[in-house]
């Protein structure tokens, strides 16, 4: 499976001790140029350079079709004051995801909410770190033999990145994983 990755996800994920884990979930990540413009720290730059050279990260060309979708998405975001702001990197991330029917890896609430609000964007699968980690656990890329192991996997990410998952989302995800993995 390929996915599109945006700025906040990539930068956050770069600080995770098991950042290479992403390769067990996805074959390749497409990244819009606007995302790379935001990379500056040694840790993220090193990761991006390594992944680009390995071909795991691909600097996606922005075609006319992607531009058209991006313009429509920007229009939605500008005209609707009730959703949080969606900025240029996320707009292009959403447009690439829509154009190539790929999931979008993002932590941007505006991007998530646009896909919940507009029927034309509902087919975009948005994945936060929470969903990516859940998929990695489900595929046994992270070993988990008990509920404690599942909780520990999320706790590691939280500790490394100073990221908090919404309480209810985390509980629902852990409950679901325990049902799938252990039948409890």
């Amino acid at each position, binding site marked *: 499976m390929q996915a599109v990755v945006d*700025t906040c996800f990539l930068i956050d994920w770069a600080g995770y001790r098991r950042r290479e884990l992403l390769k067990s979930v996805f074959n390749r990540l497409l990244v819009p140029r606007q995302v790379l413009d935001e990379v500056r720290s040694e840790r993220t730059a090193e990761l991006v350079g390594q992944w680009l050279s390995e071909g795991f990260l691909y600097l996606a060309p922005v075609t006319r079709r992607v531009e058209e979708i991006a313009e429509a998405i920007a229009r939605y975001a500008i005209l609707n004051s009730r959703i949080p702001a969606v900025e240029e990197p996320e707009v292009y991330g959403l447009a690439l995801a829509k154009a190539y029917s790929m999931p979008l890896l993002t932590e941007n*609430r505006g991007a998530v909410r646009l896909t919940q609000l507009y029927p034309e964007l509902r087919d975009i699968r948005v994945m936060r770190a929470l969903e990516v980690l859940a998929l990695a656990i489900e595929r046994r890329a992270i070993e988990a033999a008990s509920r404690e192991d599942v909780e520990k996997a999320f706790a590691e990410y939280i500790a490394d990145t*100073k990221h908090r998952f*919404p309480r209810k989302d985390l509980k629902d995800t852990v409950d679901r994983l325990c049902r799938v993995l252990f039948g409890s």
Partner: protein
Amino acid sequence: MKLEELLRKWRAEDEEARRIRRSEADWSFIEKQPPRIKAALKYYVEAGDMWVASRIAGLTVDEFNELRKKANIPVVA
């Protein structure tokens, strides 16, 4: 989900996220920063929007994220 229901859900999510950011932030670190950085960190605590916060600070998102960690402000998503 109906629009009003969706908006209620988003409001509740935003309030929870803001409460977490406010309570965990290192306010003494934030208050010691130069004006532009301080304004950006305070904006991030309230709004949770890293791209806009980074523009206020005059930094890239990556640079602002390092500052966010030093200020102990969690990303809530």
